[in-house]
C-alpha cells in the first residue's frame, strides 16, 4: 500500500525519471539485499563488541593513565556503566542504535554521531579521490595494454603493476613524502585543510594521501581491466562482427569491449570497497589526516567502545551501500540485467 502511494505521489510530481526508478526492479532487488544485510551488520557489531571486551585492558585504566588509583578507576567505571555485565551493555548499546542513538564517547563528552560526522567526510573524500585517480590512470592504461597485448606498453605496465601491488603503503607513503614534501616541497607531508575552508588547500593536502591509496589499486585494476579487455577482443563474437563491419581496433576497444569490461570491473570494485575503506586507516595515520581510520586507532587504544562500535557500524553500512550502488550501476551498464529483471 505505502509503496503504491509513494509511487503515485512521485508520478504526480511529474518526474518521469523518479517514477521509473521507484518501480524499477533494480531498486526492488536492492531492497531485498538491504534486508539480507541486516543480520550481517548485526554480526559485525556483535563481533567487535565481544572483541573489544576481550581486550585485557579496560577503558577506565586506559583513559585515566597508569597513575590512577583503584578507587578512581572504580568510580569512573561506575559512571560509564563499565561494571555492568557484558550483555547488558551490549543490549543498551543495541537499543540505542535502533533508536538512532550511537551513544557518547568515553574519552570525550562528544557524541559518537558527531565524531563520525566530523571524521567521515575526510575518509570519504580520500576514498573517492583515490578512486578517481585510479580510474583516470587505469582505464587509458588498460586500453593501451589491450591494444597491443604483450607489447612494450603491456610488458612495462605488467612490471609496474606487479611492483605497485607489492609495495607496502607505509613504504610508498614515506617515499612519496620524501620526494614531494621534503625534496620538492610540492605537497605538505602532513596536515589537513577541509574542503569547506579552501578547495585548493584541501586538494593540496589530500593529493599525496590519495595517490598512496590509489597506487596499489591502479596496479590491480589495470591488470584486471586489461585481462578482461584482451579476453573480450580475442573470444567475443560481437568483436568479430564489429571487425567485419570495418570498425577500427581502437574503436572496438573503446566503444564495444570497454563497456562490457566495465561491468566486470565494477563488480570487483564493489566487492573490494570494504577492504579499501579499511586501507584508509594506514594512509590517514601516515599523513595525520583526521579521518575515521585515524579516530579508530585512537579509540581502539583508548578502549573507547562506543566510538569503535560506531565506526565499525559505519564501515559495515558503507560496505552494504557500496554493494547496493554496484547493483544499481550494474543495471545502468548492463541492459540485460535491466530488462531481464523487469520481465521477471
Amino acid at each position, binding site marked *: 500500500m505505502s509503496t503504491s502511494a509513494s509511487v503515485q505521489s512521485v508520478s504526480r510530481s511529474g518526474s518521469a525519471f523518479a517514477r521509473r526508478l521507484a518501480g524499477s526492479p533494480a531498486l526492488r532487488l536492492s531492497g531485498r539485499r538491504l534486508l539480507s544485510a541486516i543480520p550481517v551488520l548485526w554480526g559485525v557489531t556483535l563481533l567487535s563488541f565481544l572483541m573489544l571486551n576481550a581486550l585485557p585492558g579496560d577503558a577506565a585504566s586506559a583513559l585515566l593513565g597508569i597513575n590512577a588509583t583503584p578507587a578512581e578507576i572504580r568510580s569512573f567505571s561506575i559512571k560509564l556503566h563499565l561494571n555492568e555485565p557484558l550483555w547488558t551493555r551490549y543490549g543498551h548499546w543495541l537499543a540505542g542504535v535502533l533508536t538512532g542513538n550511537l551513544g557518547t564517547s568515553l574519552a570525550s563528552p562528544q557524541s559518537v554521531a558527531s565524531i563520525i560526522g566530523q571524521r567521515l567526510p575526510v575518509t570519504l573524500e580520500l576514498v573517492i579521490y583515490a578512486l578517481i585517480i585510479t580510474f583516470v590512470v587505469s582505464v587509458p592504461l588498460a586500453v593501451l595494454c589491450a591494444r597491443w597485448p604483450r607489447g612494450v606498453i603491456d610488458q612495462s605496465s605488467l612490471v609496474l603493476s606487479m611492483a605497485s601491488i607489492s609495495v607496502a603503503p607505509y613504504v610508498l607513503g614515506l617515499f612519496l613524502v620524501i620526494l614531494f614534501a621534503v625534496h620538492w616541497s610540492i605537497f605538505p607531508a602532513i596536515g589537513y585543510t577541509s574542503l569547506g575552508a579552501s578547495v585548493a588547500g584541501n586538494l593540496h593536502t589530500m593529493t599525496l594521501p590519495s595517490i598512496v591509496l590509489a597506487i596499489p589499486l591502479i596496479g590491480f585494476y589495470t591488470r584486471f581491466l586489461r585481462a578482461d579487455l584482451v579476453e573480450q577482443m*580475442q573470444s*567475443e*563474437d*560481437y568483436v*568479430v*562482427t*564489429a*571487425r*567485419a*563491419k*570495418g*570498425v*577500427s*581496433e581502437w574503436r572496438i576497444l573503446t*566503444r*564495444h569491449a570497454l*563497456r*562490457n569490461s566495465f*561491468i566486470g570491473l565494477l563488480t570487483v570494485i564493489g566487492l573490494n570497497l570494504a577492504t579499501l575503506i579499511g586501507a584508509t586507516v594506514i594512509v590517514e595515520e601516515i599523513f595525520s589526516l583526521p579521518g575515521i581510520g585515524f579516530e579508530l586507532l585512537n579509540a581502539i587504544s583508548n578502549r573507547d567502545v562506543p566510538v569503535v562500535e560506531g565506526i565499525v557500524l559505519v564501515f559495515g553500512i558503507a560496505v552494504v551501500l557500496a554493494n547496493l550502488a554496484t547493483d544499481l550501476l550494474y543495471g545502468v*551498464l*548492463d*541492459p*540485460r540485467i535491466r*530488462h*531481464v529483471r523487469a520481465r521477471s
Partner: protein
Amino acid sequence: MASATAAGDAAPPDVRLGPSPLLEVSDLRVTFHSRAGNVYAVQGISFSIEPGQTLAIIGESGSGKTVSAQAMMAILPRTAHVTGSIRFNGEEMVGRSERELRDYRGRCVAMVFQNPERSLNPTMRVGSQIAEAITTHLPLDRKQAHERAIELLRMVRIPAPERRFYEYPHQLSGGMRQRVVIAIALACGPAVLIADEATTALDVTTQAQIMDLLLDLQEETGTALLMISHDLGLAASYAEDVIVMYAGKVVERAPTKELFAGVRMPYTQALLDAIPRIDTQPHVLLPVIGGRPPDLSVIPAGCPFAPRCPEVQQDCRDQAPPLKQHEPERWWACWHPYRKGAGQ
C-alpha cells in the same frame, strides 16, 4: 612439409565460371602456428564468385570452410598465416595493410555469423550497431545514419523498426537478432555477402524465413551470396553451385542440379546419405560417416578422406588426388569417383 608442396603443385586449377569474377580465391592456404604444432586449416583452395551468384561451401566442422570465409573477410586472428591470393574486383587483398582492409571489410564483402546470441554487442542498442556499420564507411551524419538504419531494419522485415532501433539484442528473438546481423552486413551495400552457418543456431521455421530473406535481399541488392554450411540439404535448396570441402581442401565442385544427379566423390555421397529424407522409413538409423574427422596438424601423403572412404584403394593412400575438371562445370578430387547414377 614435402607433402605440402606436392599438394600445392597439384592445386590451382582455374575454376572460374563466368567472364568477370567478383571475388577470386586461388591457392588459399591458412596455417595456424601454435605451441602444440601447426594446424593446416586450409590447404590450397581456389574458386571464384560472380556478381549475383549463390555459391555454397559445404563441409563438416574442421573442413576449413569457416576459416576460408574468415580469410576472405580478413578477420582471422593474428596467429593465422595466410598465403595464396584473394582478389576482389581484380585487386589483391592478401597482405594489405590493416587500414586498407578496414575499408574493404563491410563495404566490399560482409558477413552474417553463425550465432546471433553472441554476434551482437549486448550492451549496445541494435540501432547504434547498425548505424556504426554505416558511419564507418559512408559520410553520413548521425541523423542520416539513423534514418538509413531504420530503413535497413525495415528491409530485413523487422516490424516497428523505429521502436526496435532503441532496443538491446537480448530483447529480440533469435530470428530477429539474425535479421539485425543481416542488416548490419547489408549496411553499406556489399558486393559479396558471406553467410557462415547463418541459420544453424535457429529453429527450422526461422531457418527457412531467414534463408528466404537472404535470397530476397540478394535479388533486391544484386549482391553475390556465399553460403557456408554443413548442411548439404540447405545448399541443395538455395545455392546454384556447391563446393564440398574436406580437411582444408576442395574435394568436389558442381552446379547443384548436376551434383544431385550424380555425385562423384565418395565423401559428398556420405554427406548426402546423412540427410534425413521424407521417404526414409521411420525408426531407421541414418548412416553416419565412420571414423574420425581428419587431423589437420599433419598433411597426409594420400587422399585425406582415405581412412574413412568406403571405396578406398592403395593409390588413394599413396598419393592425394588433385582437384581437376573432369566434365564441363564439374570438378572433383578422387581417384575412384562414382560413375553417373552409381552410388545412389
